[in-house]
């Protein structure tokens, strides 16, 4: 699996009388951290890329392909949500198998891939557990295991670790980094912890009031003085 670029060309959308307009480029095989105040449109941006929202204008490219009008399941994208990533009435193995083929029946060969993916996220032997018996961190690991077996070039993470404690959150981010290096996929991660994001991300996408204000390498991004609204967001307004 190799990552693909994500390009939004003058994509606009209105929701509840609020205008969004996005224009950005995320390089293939990198991690981009999406940050910004609440309501800035971070989740909307990911929803657009995943296909849960359709743009009013503009085009969306993943790699060389225009996916603007494709169904979510047809896009080369996997999205991990903040919660409800698993079907609570199905066991861990079945939940992951659905990533390989969305059918009732699973192939015996799939079992091996499921076991491998579970081992990769540190949950070896969890096949027959039910989601209800897992902790929040374990459930998100299962969701990431499913993302692994799906082998889609782009992984979208919408604040997937927001509900976890600092230690767990760091472990999960490191896991994402490891997996990204291994697979070479492109990762977009929405987060509320800019410092943590900077630690694993190659680039930062900063959003404010429904538009992308700045995109740049994470190195030194937060010290830049030329980005409107950034200091305010970081709480460094009155220095």
């Amino acid at each position, binding site marked *: 699996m190799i990552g693909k670029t994500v390009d939004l060309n003058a994509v606009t959308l209105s*929701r*509840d009388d609020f205008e969004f307009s996005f224009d950005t480029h995320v390089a293939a095989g990198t991690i981009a951290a999406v940050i910004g105040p609440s309501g800035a449109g971070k989740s909307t941006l990911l929803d657009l890329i*995943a*296909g*849960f929202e359709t743009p009013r204008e503009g085009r969306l490219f993943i790699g060389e392909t225009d996916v603007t*009008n494709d*169904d*979510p*399941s*047809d896009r080369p*994208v*996997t*999205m991990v*949500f903040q919660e*409800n*990533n698993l*079907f*609570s*009435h*199905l066991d861990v193995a079945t939940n992951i198998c*659905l*990533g390989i083929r*969305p*059918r*009732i029946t699973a192939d015996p060969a799939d079992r091996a891939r499921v076991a491998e993916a579970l081992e990769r996220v540190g949950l070896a032997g969890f096949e027959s557990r039910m989601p209800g018996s897992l902790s929040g961190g374990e459930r998100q690991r299962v969701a990431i295991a499913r993302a692994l077996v799906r082998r889609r070039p782009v992984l979208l993470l919408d604040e997937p670790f927001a509900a976890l404690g600092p230690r767990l959150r760091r472990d999960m981010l490191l896991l994402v980094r490891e997996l990204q290096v291994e697979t070479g996929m492109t990762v977009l991660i929405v987060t509320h912890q800019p410092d943590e994001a900077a630690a694993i991300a190659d680039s930062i996408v900063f959003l404010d009031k429904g538009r992308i204000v700045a995109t740049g390498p994470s190195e030194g991004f937060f010290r830049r003085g030329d980005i409107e609204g950034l200091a305010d967001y970081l709480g460094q307004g009155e220095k």
Partner: protein
Amino acid sequence: MIERRRIKANIGAGLFVLCAMAAVIGAAVVALLTTAVGAADDGSPLFTSYIWKVTRFTLLQAFLSTLLSVAFAIPLARALARRQAFIGRSWLIRLLAVPIGLPPIVAALGLIEIWGRQGIFNSVLLAAGLEQPVSIYGLTGILLAHVFFNLPLSARLLLAQLERVPPEQWRNAAQIGLDPWTVFRLIEWPFIRSHLAPVCGLVFMLCVTSFTLVLLLGGGPGATTIEVAIYQALRFDFDPQRAVILALLQLGLTSLLLILLTWLGGAPEEGATIGHRVRRHPGKSPAAVAADFGLIGIAALFLVSPLVSIAVAGLLADFGRLLGEPIVWRAVTTSLLIAVVAALLSVSMAMTLVRARHAALPLAPRHGWARGFRAAAAAASSLVLLVPPIVLGAGWFVLLRGHVDVFAIAPLIVVAVNALMALPFVIRVLEPAHTTHMARTARLTASLGISGLNRLVLVDWPGLRRAFLLATAFAMALSLGDLGAIALFGSQDVVTLPYLLLQRMGSYRTNDAAGLALLLGLVCLVLMVIADRGRVSSGAQL
């Protein structure tokens, strides 16, 4: 593109159900209207005075029933809210839900056992030296029965409201040492008041459209409501003209009430707070305790006594002989068949409408037609309330009369009427469950590309099974206990349990009636318990 096709298919199916409903209800109304046009000039003074009398009585009994039910419900709800910890409280609150699921004909029988001429109440009065037994038939009986049904309903709704009071307010009240009257004025009344109008509206509507209780407990033309008068006009006096005028009158009345009810803030919702324990600090003086528990005790006795008498009288019935009668078995089979088909029809219609409403949701911000469709689908379920079973039945009766044998197609009509009748309640169960289910799974299934049969088996059935079974049980209980449609269309060939029960009561075979009532009551109660269990545990899961 699959996604877009699915949305279109869902909305199309919803549109089809809406049109079918409009056709069934519309045909009945049009039939009533066209027949009425021919009858308009037949306005003899005698006829007018009869109509006027029946209308007046309908409104009077509904007004008094509402007044009595709510007036007793307020102190009962207060006492129950005050006393949070006594043995049997949760059972008592569950008991408040029983009348909703009890077929009216069964309840009426139980009430007669207690309050009737040979009932316990009169025996006590006669022993105390009264010369003439008090008669249950007439206005007294109707009020008694309506209070039996609506007092617990109102108490439940008001109790839910009282349990919404923030616990700090109770603590403050106890700390300052407010007396009960001040607590009522300052805390309880403001919370109850906002719900009082909708509760009164709902009870009034239920009493205006009540058929079975008035049929059984009303007496003669002096105590007849519009619905019973329609039934009498069609089944006994063979006077379709009169039935049509009455049906239109009832239609106008329910429309007016429905508008009023919407204006008052819609039908009251029962919060999920029932059973939730708040720490209250009620008065500990013997007088306060005695007053509260005295009230709770009397209410419990009033509610339990008819139920016990149904059980006792039913057990004394000669079940061996009763179950040996082929007609009993035919009634049981017919009732169950009609109930199952009506329930499945109702649930399918509801599910189609709910899915269509949901499918149109993302289109609503941009397209006016999607907003209109969602509103129409929501309104359709309440419009069903506008046309009570008897009115709908009367419409189809005059429409089909002369073209086909109306009694031969009775099962079809009864199924349709029962399915429509249950629809608003079924939607109320299914819609929240579906919304939660979609919130949990819609994006996930879309991103994984699970569709069609795979989606049904893997995701939708496991997620919605509980709500589906619950709605089916509820609709079946409603259909099993219904006497409205079958009263118009029943015959020797098509007999349901309530209809057979009515016949046995009419021919004074009290023993048989008691046995059948127990049978019917038990089946409905079991279905309602299933439904209630599902409601509570599915609520706890969220």
